[in-house]
């Protein structure tokens, strides 16, 4: 019990929250970026553009089939060989963005496929071009259907930022490790604190999703 009281000293909690802040920063940046790139890639993959879609499809498959841990590793240590030396946080955001974009691209593709094909036919026969139909009619509907899958993915993303401890990104998991490095007895209190804090952040995300889902339902 004493371990718990000591472990949850204000100094430790503050340090953990500093880590949480980095987790949130990296997550938000990666969510925004991967949402943008993922949508673009998903559309390209769906659209059947000669060669381009096939190549994009292969890259998506390749990257989303690799453990994120390795992608983080390669981003941080491989890129300098190509002359670009990212800072730790840049490497983390970059790696998360690359990986999550591919996951989201797949979600976007299947979301578009799921929209009733009559919607596109309606748009085409109404005189809209394929791309106008996609942008104005199909995508907004696909996005609405995709919300649950997207949110699942974003929840994974938030938790996956912890993998960046491997390159010593000062996020929450790493800070927890530092704290229980001071005293090995703090490990279980720290794991409990991690569970609670991640739960709060991720659950907030899913509540947000439910709210969006309700607001977007046009009825």
């Amino acid at each position: 019990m004493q371990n718990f009281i000591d472990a949850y000293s204000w100094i430790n909690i503050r340090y953990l929250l500093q880590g949480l802040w980095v987790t949130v920063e990296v997550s938000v940046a990666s969510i925004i970026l991967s949402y943008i790139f993922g949508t673009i890639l998903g559309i390209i993959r769906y659209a059947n553009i000669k060669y381009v879609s096939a190549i994009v499809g292969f890259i998506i498959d390749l990257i989303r089939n690799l453990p994120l841990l390795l992608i983080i590793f390669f981003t941080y240590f491989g890129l300098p060989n190509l002359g670009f030396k990212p800072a730790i946080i840049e490497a983390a955001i970059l790696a998360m963005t690359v990986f999550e974009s591919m996951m989201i691209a797949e979600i976007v593709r299947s979301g578009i496929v799921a929209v009733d094909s009559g919607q596109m036919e309606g748009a085409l026969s109404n005189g809209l071009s394929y791309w106008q139909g996609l942008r104005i009619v199909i995508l907004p509907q696909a996005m609405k259907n995709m919300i649950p899958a997207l949110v699942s993915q974003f929840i994974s993303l938030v938790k996956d930022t912890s993998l960046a401890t491997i390159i010593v990104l000062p996020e929450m998991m790493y800070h927890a490790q530092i704290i229980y490095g001071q005293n090995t007895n703090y490990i279980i209190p720290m794991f409990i604190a991690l569970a609670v804090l991640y739960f709060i952040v991720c659950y907030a995300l899913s509540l947000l999703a439910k709210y969006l889902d309700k607001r977007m339902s046009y009825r």
Partner: protein
Amino acid sequence: MIHIFATQWPLLLEGLGRTLLCSIIALFFSLIIGSLFAIFEIMPNKIMRVIGNIYVEVFRNIPLLVITMFFFVVIPLYVTKINGFTAGTIGLTIYTSAFIAETVRSGIQSVDPGQMEGAMSNGLTFWQSMRYVVLPQAFKIVIPPLGNQFINLVKNSSVLAFVAGFDLMYQGNMIANNTLQTMPTFFVVGILYLVITMPLSYYMRYLEKKLA
């Protein structure tokens, strides 16, 4: 790179085998448990719905490592001794089943409700209708997102590395540390993961096309 594989293949293959074994076991059980909780979530009985909901929300929203560590260090203190491989596999199963429950639930809900009504009015009970009519159709619908979950599962099995499960990532860490050939080692490890996940994702794509 070739050198790494040439000298370290026994460890790497053991790791690959363990990763594969853990994935298959976790896949099997998380599919069953996930489907069960998915059904709970849509049952007419409110208590069951709440139970299903809590399970999914809790285990989906906390990190896999925390769940796994719980089985590795807390359960042995109070319940029974389990090794890292088992603890990792259990953790992975619980974590993945929460995601699968979400996926299957949305799949069940997208099966035409007429199917359930047809079965019920034909005299089948709720559970019989689920088992014989709705679930088989739901699985067809959820194959693409389920495929995503399977691939995630294989990759998430690297959590075994944290509890000495002797999986691919664990062996990779050891080799990297002993040889200090970090980048080449992880490159080989990455390729070995692709050996499992790529065929899986192409198979999923094939199934998706075939069942469309």
